[in-house]
């Protein structure tokens, strides 16, 4: 079931561009390394030994393939489309993030790097990075916004248990974008020995393409699994989007299947009209940040505005450049779900399926709640259950505590 990475895609071009999006907008100090990374990655893509190792770790360490599960109760609950959950939350470390981390750490080893750094929002990428760093015996530093450290305590503890150093970032609003700034500052300072494992399909080329390729295992498996179960491709795919790696991982192998509808769900926060949201495509404009051109939340003077979401993992004022391109091409429909809608869907999933989803994933489920009831049972809808929600207990208790008679967890 472990398919090779998608080699057929023609984008990005040699300069890392998806149309006008993407690119390599980084300091000169980083350029030689980024070009070297690109070369090494190109070699790895067609190196049978690299692919063999990747498949081995995806299988025996991560636990792939993840099941494609028919959510019978959820299907009945919404009374429309047949809903399938791609169970990425069953991966080792509890989210899709590790698919990419395994790939990048193998590349780091191949390049002879001695130290791993990463940024994290909800902490899932931080945990996945700390995990692979431990497995491969590399020292690891995770940059995490102070605000996020506050709301994702369990993950902070997990990273420390795994031997990583977690550095709180207080600049800006202390969330994911500030953590990424700080990781870039570390990288530019320690460029000789350090490998930066970016957690999403953003950053300078080749990261958006590389992370997408490592995550595309999700879509390749889904395709094979649905063909096996139903003898045909799904009708629609739904995934939540912060930077957009779980969505692109699911979508990418289906991009040329024009009958497969794709819906990306951004974090609508208090509502896109309120200004307090993280919906870069629905409420942002094109700009250049963190090494790539994409849609950003920013004011008219090009200053980045802080994102808002109940979910730390979606709380980012940008989006991967390939999503920006797919948005302009109209290939993927991008919608948003508010904090309240996500919380509602979170509970429905817990109660109907006995699965506690991540708050990020709950945004995708919120879109399912809107869309599934309007569709017939023959419609096969796949939702990427990108992560589990154990890490969100504190946040959810804070928002729903009254209802369950729990004041503090």
């Amino acid at each position, binding site marked *: 079931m472990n398919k090779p990475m998608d080699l057929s895609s023609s984008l990005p071009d040699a300069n890392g561009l998806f149309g006008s999006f993407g690119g390599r907008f980084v*300091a*000169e100090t980083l350029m030689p390394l980024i070009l070297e990374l690109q070369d090494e990655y190109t070699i790895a893509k067609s190196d049978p030994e690299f692919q063999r190792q990747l498949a081995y770790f995806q299988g025996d360490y991560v636990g792939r393939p993840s099941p494609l599960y028919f959510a019978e109760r959820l299907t009945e609950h919404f009374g429309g489309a047949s809903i399938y959950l791609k169970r990425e939350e069953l991966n080792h470390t509890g989210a899709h993030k590790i698919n990419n981390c395994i790939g990048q750490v193998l590349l780091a080893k191949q390049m002879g790097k001695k130290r791993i750094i990463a940024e994290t929002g909800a902490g899932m990428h931080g945990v996945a990075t700390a995990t692979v760093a431990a497995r491969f015996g590399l020292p690891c530093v995770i940059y995490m916004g102070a605000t996020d450290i506050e709301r994702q305590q369990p993950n902070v503890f997990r990273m420390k248990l795994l031997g990583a150093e977690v550095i709180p970032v207080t600049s800006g609003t202390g969330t994911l*974008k500030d953590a990424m700034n700080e990781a870039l500052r570390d990288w530019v300072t320690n460029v000789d020995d350090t490998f930066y494992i970016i957690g999403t399909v953003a950053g300078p080329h080749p990261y958006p393409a590389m992370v997408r390729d490592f995550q595309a295992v999700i879509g390749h498996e889904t395709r094979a699994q649905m063909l096996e179960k139903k003898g045909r491709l799904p009708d629609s795919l739904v995934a939540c989007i912060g930077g957009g790696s779980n969505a692109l991982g699911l979508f990418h192998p289906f991009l040329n299947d024009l009958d497969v509808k794709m819906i990306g769900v951004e974090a609508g926060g208090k509502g896109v009209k309120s200004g307090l949201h993280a919906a870069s495509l629905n409420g942002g404009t094109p700009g250049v940040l963190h090494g790539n051109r994409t849609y950003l939340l*920013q004011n008219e003077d090009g200053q980045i505005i802080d994102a808002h979401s109940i979910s730390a993992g979606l709380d980012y004022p940008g989006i991967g450049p390939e999503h920006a391109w797919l948005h302009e091409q109209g290939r993927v429909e991008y919608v948003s779900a508010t904090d309240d809608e996500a919380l509602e869907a979170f509970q429905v999933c817990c109660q109907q399926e006995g699965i506690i989803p991540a708050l990020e994933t709950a945004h995708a489920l919120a879109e399912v709640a809107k869309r599934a009831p309007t569709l017939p049972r023959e419609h096969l809808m796949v939702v990427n259950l990108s992560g589990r929600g154990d890490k969100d207990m504190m946040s959810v208790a804070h928002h729903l505590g009254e209802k369950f008679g729990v004041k503090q967890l």
Partner: protein
Amino acid sequence: MTHKSRLENCFAALKQQNRPALVSYLTAGDPDADTSRRLLHGLPKAGVDIIELGMPFSDPMADGPAIQKAALRALNNGQTQAKTLEMVRRFRAEDSTTPIVLMGYYNPIFCYGVERFLTDAAKAGVDGLIVVDLPPEHDEELCTPAAQHGIDFIRLATPTTDAKRLPKVLANASGFIYYVSVAGVTGGSAPTPERLEGAVNQLREHTELPIAVGFGIRTAEQAATIGRFSDAVVVGSALVDCIENANTPDEAIERVHGLVSELAESVRACREVSEEHQF
């Protein structure tokens, strides 16, 4: 007869005097618009030869804490790209010779509109641009259009720029070359002078352009050491720290111009003991 730019005239005059240029960096609008204007207007008199004026950005990935905070102070006090250009225009009305180079990140320029920005910058009297996150791979974005507006695009060379990459970095460079002395962010630790001198001499084999050295230069003594073999020394974070550490705008101005005077005196004298060294 070809028209010489302010930067060319400046470096030609300093070559005559056998001394390096003192380049100062301050963030436009730091700590507030009025103080920043007074700081800027006093720089040439205090001894600055070339002015780098930072365009504040919310996410300065290549800057250390000092310049990050300066950008936030400026933005919190309402600094915009338009106000920064207006500062240059007012300065230029009083001073027609001191070169001004705007330094920053691409996004505020991209959002202002590249053509509109270059038109307004040329009109205001901007001489050059240093844009940290535009490597030569993206020259069509700003470097090439800037040349058409007569604005120099100053390229950064770094310790990671190897022989293979250097020609690409130098290809469309103009004004001067900014050698980033250490791999890292602004305001970090200074490199050893021996290693720096080697790197600058190596650069000279590949370019006729003047070579400025920056990142981590804080004191008059460091400026003198590096000024012996470079064409310009850039001091930024140390000046910005003066603003942060001052209790009042007047104190900020006194401290900044005071440090500039010390640095200026030092670079003016730095080659006197070693006449045979160069030129």
